């Protein structure tokens, strides 16, 4: 049985992960854009925080939100009107598809799959998000993918 982990006050979540998430955003976006992305990430986190049911996987959750903000920032950078290759304008972005598909996986595998295939994070960053390392992240992602394939064949 999984031990119950109660959700800490948002202050503690913010104090614990804000530095690390800022470093991640700087790596992905550069120092200037990272500042707006930082604010956006933690405002989104604040909005969703009250709906979380427990305090497990908060780090991976924070990375998932940050990665989504990075993806949105990249999309906004594309000049308006430029067609998105091979996709209808109203298609769901890749990460939304993946998050949907991976919804039933165990938490660590789900986070690894979503961060790798939805947001294109390196295994180093995913390892950081999961509080482990690149090797463990690669294993979690591939076992998640195997599990998804098995489900698809059923």
């Amino acid at each position, binding site marked *: 049985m999984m031990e119950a982990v109660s*959700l*800490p*006050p*948002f*202050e*503690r979540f*913010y104090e614990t992960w*804000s*530095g*690390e998430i*800022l*470093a991640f955003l*700087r790596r992905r976006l550069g120092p200037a854009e990272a*500042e707006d992305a*930082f*604010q956006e990430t*933690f*405002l989104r986190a*604040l*909005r969703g*925080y*009250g709906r*979380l049911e427990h305090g497990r996987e908060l780090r991976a959750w924070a990375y998932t939100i940050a990665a989504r903000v990075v993806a949105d920032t990249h999309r906004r950078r594309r000049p308006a009107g430029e067609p998105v290759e091979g996709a209808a304008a109203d298609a769901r972005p890749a990460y939304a598809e993946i998050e949907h598909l991976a919804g039933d996986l165990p938490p660590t595998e789900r986070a690894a799959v979503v961060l790798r295939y939805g947001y294109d994070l390196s295994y180093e960053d995913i390892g950081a998000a999961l509080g482990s390392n690149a090797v463990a992240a690669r294993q979690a992602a591939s076992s998640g993918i195997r599990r998804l394939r098995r489900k698809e064949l059923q």
Partner: protein
Amino acid sequence: MTSVPEPLDVRFRSAAASSGFLDVAYNLVDTPLGTLLLAASPRGLCRIAYDPEPERQAEELATRFGVRVLRAPLDDPRRQLDEYFEGRRRSFDLELDLADVRPFPRRVLEHLAQVPYGEVTTYGRLAAQAERPRAARAVGTVMNRNPIPIVLPCHRVVGSSGKLVGYGGGLDRKERLLRLEGALL
């Protein structure tokens, strides 16, 4: 380990405060009576605490009001407290949130709020006003647990003999507040 530069941190906290997503904003304020912790929900001020222990109090606030508790600016209550301590303000113009206070204590606190600046009342009189005339001792307990001291002026409540009796923040603070208001010479 990266730390968040102060301007960025300040910017996030004030954006959070005006986002409408916080269950409680709290902050530390320096006053002549020492550092106070102030906390407010979207409905109003819900805590003033002497000798703050922010981590423990953030937990307690999260349990009672919701987990979205963040240290964030509370400009209006802070300004009004400053004015009060400078002797430039005699009453507070603040919404209060007593949602987590039970009915009897709340009734007592509502009567307490009517006691004017610079005057005192007694535990017995407050008990009578709350329709429990023999509950002076219970009123004492309510004063001791007052979630918003100073603004809800439990320092203006004294024993029937005029003795100060007690104060959640310590008797010397009660004395200083009454002196500030000119109720003690």
